């Protein structure tokens, strides 16, 4: 069962997974492009760190994009068929959901491994000044976890009906509107900051996306 679901899902998400895997491999290499092994172009440690940090912004963006697009592709055939085929299959619904979720995770393992391969390749061939170190495995694990979190969130949202998605969007919109109205009315009410903190700061569920993503660090 898992194999046929994995194959069907691959057909829906192969473009996203392929492009995402290529991007995930290239990103670490590009992030250390200035740290050439040639002695003619030595870069100082500070400049390397600045460049690695600048490129590091793209890791969470790539992880979120991959999670979103693969989650959408995961449910796309069922949404198109209004879930009739899936519901008429002879297996419990929770098991079907797990199979779909697992197949998406297997596909997303490719870009996570590509980050690892690209990061190992980049740190091996870059001239890293003394005092700095490469962290290819840590970066790849963090990228993998970020992809997992993004995929899980968007998988759960897109598993629901259009109505569910509407309720979620309305809730988010409602918070923003309350904040704006409070600002206009000169009422001291800050809803967004605590919400942002709860989501984005540790132990918030999206904390993995924030902070510095450094392939090379002290």
């Amino acid at each position, binding site marked *: *069962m898992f*194999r*046929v*679901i994995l*194959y*069907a899902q691959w*057909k*829906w998400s192969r473009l996203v997974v392929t492009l995402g895997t290529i991007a995930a491999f290239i990103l670490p290499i590009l992030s250390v492009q200035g740290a050439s092994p040639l002695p003619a172009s030595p870069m100082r440690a500070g400049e390397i760190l600045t460049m690695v940090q600048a490129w590091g912004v793209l890791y969470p963006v790539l992880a979120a994009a991959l999670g979103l697009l693969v989650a959408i592709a995961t449910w796309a*055939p069922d949404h*198109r*068929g*209004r879930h*009739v*085929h899936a*519901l*008429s*299959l*002879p*297996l*419990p619904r929770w098991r079907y959901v797990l199979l779909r979720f697992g197949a998406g995770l297997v596909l997303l393992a490719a870009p996570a491994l590509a980050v690892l391969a690209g990061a190992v390749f980049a740190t091996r061939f870059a001239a890293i000044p003394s005092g700095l170190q490469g962290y290819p495995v840590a970066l790849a694990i963090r990228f993998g976890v970020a992809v997992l979190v993004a995929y899980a969130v968007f998988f759960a949202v897109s598993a629901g009906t259009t109505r569910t998605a509407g309720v979620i969007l309305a809730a988010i919109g409602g918070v923003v509107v309350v904040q704006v109205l409070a600002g206009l009315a000169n009422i001291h009410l800050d809803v967004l900051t605590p919400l942002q903190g709860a989501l984005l700061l540790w132990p918030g569920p999206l904390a993995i996306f924030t902070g510095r993503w450094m392939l090379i660090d002290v």
Partner: protein
Amino acid sequence: MTHAIAIRGLHYRAGRSFEIPNLDLSVPTGSIYGFLGPNGSGKTTTIRLVLGLLRPRAGDIRVLDRPMPHDAPRVLARVGYVPEQPHLDPTLTVREVLRFQGAFYPTWDHAWAEELLVAFDLDEHRLFGKLSKGQKGKVMMLLALAQRPDLLVLDEPTDGLDPVVRRDMLAALLDYVSEHGATVFISSHLVHELERMCDWIGVMDQGRLVTELPMERFKRGIKRLVVSGAPPIGDPTPFSVLSREPNGASSETWLVRGWEPEMQAFFETGGASLQRVIDLDLEEGFVELLRTFRTPRREEVR
């Protein structure tokens, strides 16, 4: 008599517009049960409730002697379902669709699936989404049959298909049923098609089951009678009078249910005269039945 499908006191409501208020329905095991009704009468909803795709508000549904939707996975492993619209993944080829479906059914018959693929003249390399409506219908029927089900639930499987495709599909269906004694629950508004193949008939309208009986009794029992010197309305009759319409001053046309030839004596003893007994085919019987079912309801509304 055992029943492949037994529904008791089913209540389902979809929003404010549609309701199945209290449905009792029984599909005898081994029968080919035609489920007739106009568009929007509740046939597809009933089928989806039977298969556990929708949850009822109240009532009891048993399919192959198991409660639904509680035992849905076990029941669905023994049910071949052809939905009204083909809901398969359009990006898979016919071959991939077969492989996908086969992975879920322990009774899947690979050899027979291959035979049906050839018999239905399907191109295994074509994407399901690129197939014509008739070809999609054939694929759906192939999938339902190749899992060797005990019960086939077919929701307007031949709707919109050309006669050749319809004949191929129904021939394969009848071959399977005659070999395996499976039960078939088939909904359609192609009345003539059901008339040829079904041995039981259920008629649904406005979320209610109008009637349910063996096909022969249905066809034999509904007649149009031309009566002269008709007795007054309200006199007891040995059959059900569905409607009475005057034909000029001297005679009336009666639509009756439960008619038997020996009932002719009713008119003779009452001083009336039965001039003609007109046989109705299933379609005429169906239309008249719905007409008479709806008339008192309209009056109730007024």
